[in-house]
């Protein structure tokens, strides 16, 4: 792994660590038990769903309903797993550990690299780094509280989309991919006000259909117009 990649990953770990601190502190300040944010972060390890879960429990929701909402937010990891599933090789240990470390950032860092060796290094480096920094942050926030409960003051809420955007940008040079991405983004934003968190991003996958338009007639599937259903947006989340 070259030094630039290490530095880039370290920055994302630092930013997510701060968000973890605030997640831990906020959860405990809502009178939830101190072990909850810590346990969530270790066993779920997906920031957006953790915020959704805690938010629903705090507002008096049934924990089972909160669990279902969290699962919906995390369903996007399924297609991500298929896209990078060959990265772990055949070792069961690696497949199990790698799966647990599969989050937006580790997938994005992996896919932004060109050669397979670099992809693997980026995935494991980012996955392990974030697992450590996220859990350490949440632990410190839960146990010690923090002065920074509002990470928006630091602009960290803008950092998460900027990270994903910067890492996905090279892939957008391909015209068909770019149109598919744009279509998906429009679907997700249009649907967000009407659907529960997580679903809009899944509906965005309909944007993939755009890549079939303009194929040679031989391998063309009938061009589908993008479904006009609206979807809802997930909470912005780090380490999600």
């Amino acid at each position, binding site marked *: 792994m070259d030094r630039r990649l290490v530095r880039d990953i370290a920055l994302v770990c630092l930013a997510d660590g701060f968000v973890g601190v605030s997640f831990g502190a906020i959860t405990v300040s809502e009178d939830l038990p101190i072990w909850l944010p810590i346990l969530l972060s270790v*066993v779920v390890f997906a920031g957006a769903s953790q915020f959704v879960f805690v938010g629903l429990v705090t507002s008096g929701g049934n924990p089972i309903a909160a669990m279902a909402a969290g699962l919906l937010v*995390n369903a996007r990891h399924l297609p991500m797993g298929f896209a990078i599933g060959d990265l772990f090789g055949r070792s069961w240990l690696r497949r199990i550990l790698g799966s647990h470390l599969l989050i937006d950032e580790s997938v994005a860092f992996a896919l932004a690299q060109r050669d397979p060796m670099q992809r693997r290094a980026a995935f494991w480096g980012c996955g392990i780094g974030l697992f450590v920094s996220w859990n350490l942050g949440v632990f410190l926030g839960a146990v010690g509280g923090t002065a920074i409960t509002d990470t928006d003051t630091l602009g960290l809420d*803008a950092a998460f989309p*900027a990270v994903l*955007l910067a890492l996905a940008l090279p892939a957008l040079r391909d015209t068909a*991919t770019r149109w598919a991405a744009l279509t*998906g983004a429009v679907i997700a934003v249009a649907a967000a006000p009407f659907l529960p968190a997580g679903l809009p991003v899944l509906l*965005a996958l309909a944007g993939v259909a755009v890549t079939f338009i303009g194929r040679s007639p031989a391998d063309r599937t009938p061009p589908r117009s993008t479904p006009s259903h609206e979807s809802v947006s997930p*909470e912005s989340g780090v380490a999600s």
Partner: protein
Amino acid sequence: MTTLILATLILGVGTFAFRFAGPVLRTRADLPPRLEKLMGVAVVVLFAALVATSTLLDGRDFVGFARPAGVVVGGVLAWRKAPFVIVVLAAAGTAAGLRLLGVP
């Protein structure tokens, strides 16, 4: 309390199942190139949707101007091939600076 632990554990197991399905079902390293390409596009589409929604929305509501402005600044810098660190710091700095000035 028991329900809370149980809900947390099931969320963890379910999330793991989502993540594990791909790596476990893709036992063959070589899928048809077209399918491989399609899955790559799908992930980029997911990222685009995540970027768009997390830039513009907080839950179901418009998030205000500071965050989108930060992301746009970061996006333009990334497009002009600025180093990743600069992109992220500029995005966060722009949003933080605008809020300091009272922009929501």
